[in-house]
């Protein structure tokens, strides 16, 4: 759908950079609030008929994500080293199309718990880290979590988990049908006295808001949904924003710089159009929702004589405190077929190990879930510890595919200033802009947490009757799809980039809202929280605009 278009010479109320999980929501809230919005999206706009069950295209040729050729990145695990070009998959991997990563995410939509927002106060400081409380509490965000569940569409069962934070409404849809992995996980976990629950998923278990229910094709994780049952912003809030007649989504529009005037206020956004011509869209205010990689990059690329270290960077924290989460796994092989390649990834989760426990001797916690592994090709390429990787024994293992499942782990990452996004001093992208340089090394506590959780996952599979249980390797990560913390929110301009309403401390008409806003990493599955923040930010920013406070 196209609809309203704006001239670049026209000063619109807002430019929103990015059309993903956050940008789509913010755009809709602003447009519904009576404001004019231009959304700049660096990738193309697809329709559902473009989406396929094609592992080569979507996992190995960057069909709907950033790619290592046009958008190269460099990586190092230590700031003293020279970062190396990443040549297979980007270190920071994100959706590059209208809808962003909400196109290809797995759609696990659990809420953060209250502890995620004030854990620093509860546990005390952790030396050498940027461990901090959020400037908002779970109670502040609760209404917006509910909004996500009802307006984006989440299937789940309220009241199932003894660990769930308080909620004001049930889920709008019942849980998706349980898979064999969910049944086995539930059986094993209950034997151990644990509390498995139906997984909250942003996938329709029935027709909802005019979108189809899930047809159980199995291609969620890494793929875009062909029937629109998985909630992407492409199929939910973006068409709703456009329906207001006040929002234009401009695909193939790659933001390169936010300009500021002599008053230190943002005047609009420079970008390349699909023909690589430089354009400029004027706006009264700018909201950057470009993800935890591209948001800090755009600010750093917008350095000027007035803002020599990058825009909104008086704290020096733009790009710092990058957090990935960690996804570990135990794999179980069972006697009978599970056929996990069918239907959604996850149907049961467990939060018994969510809280950090000082008795373990290190910081960290996480959630577990029952899931299929990846689809055939990636499943075949991946190898657990001590498993054969070729030959007759390997071929025998391949045949275990329909009898296998994973108990996956999702866990905390500590905020470290040494984990960050900077501009590579040498490498340029296909548009001549500085490439992203990533520096990242998991904190030892984060890896200890993964080992602890993988052992628990293995115990559950064992209790469920697995014939064989193996674990994935645990080692420092070199890439992620969870891009968190790089423009953190806080009350103090010296120790944060945006305030609790996502307004940058330094530039009054510049707002940042996406994974970069997170102060702590949660225990994985951040998109639900990113969208709750986006609904809250959109509502407040619209109010600021209407009263002339932008």
């Amino acid at each position: 759908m196209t609809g309203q278009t704006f001239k670049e010479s026209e000063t619109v109320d807002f430019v929103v950079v990015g059309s993903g999980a956050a940008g789509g929501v913010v755009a809709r809230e602003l447009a519904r609030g009576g404001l004019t919005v231009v959304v700049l999206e660096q990738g193309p706009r697809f329709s559902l008929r473009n989406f396929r069950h094609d592992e080569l295209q979507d996992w190995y040729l960057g069909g709907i994500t950033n790619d290592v050729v046009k958008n190269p990145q460099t990586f190092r695990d230590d700031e003293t080293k020279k970062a190396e070009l990443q040549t297979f998959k980007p270190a920071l991997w994100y959706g590059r199309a209208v809808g962003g990563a909400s196109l290809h995410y797995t759609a696990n939509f659990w809420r953060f718990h209250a502890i995620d927002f004030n854990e620093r106060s509860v546990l005390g400081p952790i030396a050498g880290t940027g461990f901090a409380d959020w400037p908002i509490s779970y109670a502040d965000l609760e209404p917006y979590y509910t909004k996500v569940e009802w307006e984006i569409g989440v299937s789940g069962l309220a009241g199932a988990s003894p660990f769930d934070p308080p909620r004001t409404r049930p889920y709008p849809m019942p849980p998706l049908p349980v898979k064999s992995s969910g049944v086995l996980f539930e059986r094993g976990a209950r034997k151990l006295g644990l509390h498995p629950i139906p997984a909250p998923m942003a996938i329709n278990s029935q027709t909802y808001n005019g979108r189809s229910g899930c047809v159980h094709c199995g291609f969620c994780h890494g793929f875009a949904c062909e029937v629109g049952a998985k909630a992407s912003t492409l199929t939910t809030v973006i068409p709703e924003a456009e329906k207001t007649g006040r929002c234009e989504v401009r695909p193939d529009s790659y933001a390169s710089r936010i300009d500021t005037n002599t008053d230190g206020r943002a005047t609009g956004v420079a970008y390349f159009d699909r023909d690589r011509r430089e354009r400029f869209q004027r706006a009264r205010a700018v909201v950057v929702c470009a993800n935890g990689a591209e948001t800090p990059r755009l600010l750093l690329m917008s350095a000027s004589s007035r803002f020599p270290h990058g825009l909104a960077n008086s704290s020096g924290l733009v790009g710092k405190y990058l957090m990935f989460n960690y996804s570990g796994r135990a794999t179980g092989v069972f006697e009978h077929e599970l056929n996990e390649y069918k239907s959604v990834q996850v149907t049961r989760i467990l939060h018994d190990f969510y809280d950090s426990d000082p008795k373990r001797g290190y910081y960290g916690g996480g959630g577990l879930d029952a899931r299929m592994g990846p689809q055939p090709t990636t499943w075949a390429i991946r190898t657990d510890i001590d498993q054969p990787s070729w030959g007759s024994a390997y071929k025998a293992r391949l045949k275990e595919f329909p009898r296998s499942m994973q108990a996956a782990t999702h866990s905390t990452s500590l905020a470290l200033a040494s984990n960050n996004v900077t501009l590579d001093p040498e490498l340029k992208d296909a548009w001549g802009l500085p490439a992203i340089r990533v520096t990242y090394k998991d904190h030892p506590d984060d890896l200890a947490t993964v080992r602890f959780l993988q052992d628990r996952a293995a115990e559950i599979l064992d209790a469920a009757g697995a014939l064989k249980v193996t674990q994935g390797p645990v080692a420092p990560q070199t890439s992620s799809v969870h891009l968190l913390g790089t423009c953190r929110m806080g009350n103090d301009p010296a120790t944060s980039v945006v305030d609790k309403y996502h307004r940058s401390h330094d530039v009054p008409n510049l707002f940042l809202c996406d994974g970069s806003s997170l102060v702590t990493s949660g225990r994985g599955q951040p998109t639900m929280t990113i969208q709750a923040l986006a609904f809250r930010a959109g509502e407040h920013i619209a109010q600021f605009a209407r009263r002339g406070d932008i």
Partner: protein
Amino acid sequence: MDSASLSRRTLLHAIAAAMATAALPFGWADIAQAVQDMRSAAPAGGSTLTFLSAADAADVEAIAAQIIPSDDSPGAREAGVVYFIDRALATFFTQLGADYRAQLTAFQQAFRERHPSAASFAAAASDQQIAYLNIVDRTPFFNTTRVLTLLGMFTRPTYGGNRDGVGWKLIGFEDAHVFQPPFGYYDRDYPGFVVDQLHSK
């Protein structure tokens, strides 16, 4: 990092190194287009070689056939993996070509030095091949060949491998757009979720 990432990194390292010298960046979307073009020009299932010589193809196929051997069920050979690899190197992994060819030559040369009597790797006895691959299975060349083999075994048959879906049949994967529960053995008689009252609030 798991071994898959290692393999993939190795594989694409060579690609990007080659790409860095290209005048214009060649994106994956463009590569996908090239695959489409290739598909219409040379339908999948053919046995013509574009990139590899017949002798090189025989060696690559022999390695692939040790990665997924043919026994009571089809392996990499029956899946036409070598034709997928040939097509990949000629189209969407074209920039890998020069490096891969050089690595293959080095592999062949090292094998001949160790087994002067063997005409080629492909012509050697299976146990001799396995013994040799056990020595080199940590090298970039082997890792690249392994990833290409698995891509050729399990990705869509339209890309030239996985002929007649033998890869999917081998592992019991069904390519369909709609499934209905029950999906497997264990969810057939599931009684429904019961909230654990004892522990819930």
